[in-house]
């Protein structure tokens, strides 16, 4: 591969191979998209770089999104790879304000995996689709040789309709916007870690995996003038806030004590040396709304079961454009950076 034509000031010249961090949802992932995928594919729709692309088709505006699920283990407290495969794509569509309608589902199975396991995953996937109110309309199955997969990988793609008058994308945040968070962060990542081989620890944390399209409907019921929605999955809350700050060029200021973190999540993260703001979620949403609508949106969120613990966590400011800064619990300040790749548990 010829790296000489790359324009990034810190290109991946010293990364001749893909490393795990390229899939971590942080800076390395973004660089891969910017320098490898986007130039190769082209296209205005891809350039939106949102969770889903919004496309004009036959007079309608369609949201279109795809995601692949490679989670280990396949079943974890509070959910399974089947739930994630539905909720992840439904939520990506919902984050553009769309009403998700149809999903595709591609299974990549590893030779030797128990048929009963596949059936259990499929059952969970079907149930999650029914809960989210979407239909699995088409699918595909492939089998790879033993040793070439982790049992079951799933890809889902989805489409949905974007209502008239709704324009939600990361570029639309402006100074003065209020930042809302739909509930406590970090539960999904900690639930997965708590049962991952080599790291099992006794903690009663269940994944927050859930569809967010109902919550988005509730928010849009309060006002259609929502600037940005984002579900903080890989890379956690910190990555999502950074992506929005970078896309819109505004500063994002958050108050550390206003970001809800369940005590069990905080304790597990403290033991592992992880920051809960960087831990993945699968059923949480951040919303950037104009100040005049913030109270109504917060009330609408709290009235919905998925947003009962919603909170205002900060605002957009003129200062430090493109960066996220937190006021610490003790009154100091700190930068909240985009994670490079994956968080690594510390040594001691």
């Amino acid at each position, binding site marked *: 591969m010829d790296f000489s034509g790359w324009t990034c000031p810190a290109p991946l010249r010293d990364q001749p191979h893909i490393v795990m961090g390229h899939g971590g949802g942080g800076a390395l992932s973004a660089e891969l998209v910017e320098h490898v995928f986007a130039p190769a594919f082209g296209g205005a729709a891809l350039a939106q770089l949102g969770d889903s692309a919004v496309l004009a088709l036959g007079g309608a505006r369609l949201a279109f999104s795809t995601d692949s699920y490679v989670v280990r283990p396949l079943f974890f407290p509070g959910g399974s790879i089947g739930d994630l495969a539905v909720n992840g794509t439904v939520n990506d569509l919902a984050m553009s304000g769309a009403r998700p309608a149809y999903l595709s589902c591609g299974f990549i199975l590893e030779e030797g995996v128990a048929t009963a396991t596949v059936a259990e995953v499929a059952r969970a996937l079907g149930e999650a689709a029914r809960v989210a109110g979407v239909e699995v309309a088409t699918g595909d199955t492939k089998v790879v040789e033993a040793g070439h997969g982790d049992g079951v990988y799933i890809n889902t793609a989805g489409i949905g309709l974007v209502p008239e008058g709704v324009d939600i994308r990361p570029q639309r945040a402006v100074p003065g916007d209020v930042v809302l968070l739909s509930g406590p962060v970090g539960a999904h990542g900690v639930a997965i870690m708590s049962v991952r081989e080599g790291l099992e620890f006794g903690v009663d944390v269940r994944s927050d995996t859930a569809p967010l399209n109902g919550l988005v409907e509730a928010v849009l019921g309060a006002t259609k003038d929502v600037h940005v929605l984002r579900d903080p999955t890989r890379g956690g809350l910190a990555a999502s806030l950074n992506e929005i700050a970078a896309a819109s060029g505004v500063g994002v200021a958050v108050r550390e004590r206003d970001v809800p973190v369940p005590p069990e999540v905080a304790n597990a993260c403290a033991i592992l040396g992880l920051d809960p703001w960087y831990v993945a979620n699968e059923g949480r949403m951040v919303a950037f709304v104009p100040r005049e609508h913030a109270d109504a949106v917060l009330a609408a969120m709290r009235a919905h079961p998925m947003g009962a613990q919603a909170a205002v966590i900060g605002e957009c400011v003129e*200062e430090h454009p493109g960066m996220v*800064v937190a006021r610490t619990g003790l009154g100091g*300040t700190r930068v909240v950076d985009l994670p490079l790749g994956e968080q690594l548990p*510390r*040594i*001691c």
Partner: protein
Amino acid sequence: MKYIEEFQNPDLAKRLLDEIHATVTRPWALMEVCGGQTHSIIRHGIDQLLPEQIELIHGPGCPVCVTPLEMIDKALEIASRPGVLFCSFGDMLRVPGSGRDLFQVRAAGGDVRVVYSPLDALKLARQNPDRQVVFFGIGFETTAPPNAMAVHQAARLGVPNFSMLVSHVRVPPAIEAIMCSPDCRVDAFLAAGHVCSVMGTGEYPELAERFRVPIVVTGFEPLDILEGVRRSVRQLEAGRHTVENAYPRAVRPEGNPAARAMLADVFEVTDRAWRGIGTIPGSGWRLSERYRAFDAEHRFSVEDVTTLEPAACRAGEVLQGLLKPHECEAFGTVCTPRTPLGATMVSSEGACAAYYLYRRLGGTPVPAAGKEANPVG
């Protein structure tokens, strides 16, 4: 597990801060020994809240940062060999050797695994008798006992395909080296609580007396650190220099006798090179003669690895408290977590990483205390 919230209580923090402000009359330089303390200080903005007269100097206590480049290159060399299953704690994987890191070894086909305990590496050795399983044993007195236990178990169970690349370091000789430096300006130490939970406090009175320096054993939560600062300042203002234990919930004077016994059985004291600092006499541990068969350096004959330290990296001065990370000309420009020159920029306990993560505000790497823009309400 409710304690974490309690030890971050802003009202109690304010009381401690008020007392510190009321006590200080002169400038004092306090060194927090441990990188975990450094991250807590910077992450919570504690240094911004202390009186201007108090300067917190970041010490050498990041286990990943002080692991010599030569040892990392040996790890990379061993991990690249066919048939080797190389195990390490997670934050060692991103530390650059002379040109690459363990992540890149793995991407190129090496079998590098993140483990959370050295006993997991021993388990892998028993599950893979046809592979050579190597554990990268680094760190201070905190990580040494479980690593010693893994070697002890390997010997007891007779696991011939397990070995350890040992690069352990000890805190007291590092404190002595810092105090003996002609450039030293440390007035008091916040000793690393986790280290003392193993070793106790018995190693410190002689140092405190000899260098006439207060040593306060300090934990890692914001209130722990403020209490450590409060006690240090009280001693300094009163002209005293004793050892105090401000972390009694974790540290007993005698430490952990079982852990110390395990260390004495498996390891012996040796001279050890510290990355960026140089060799400090008696500052490390190696496997004792009885366990030498489990020494990966000998098993894989990597004694002659040559290293290439980046000339621009000033991590050694940072680790000795002679330079603040943002005062380095490479900080945030050629040296970032993305393109690190040294381990202090990538380790989760590295001082440069702490400054880069939490203090890189616009074009101003470190806003002066109380003078930065107020971004939140």
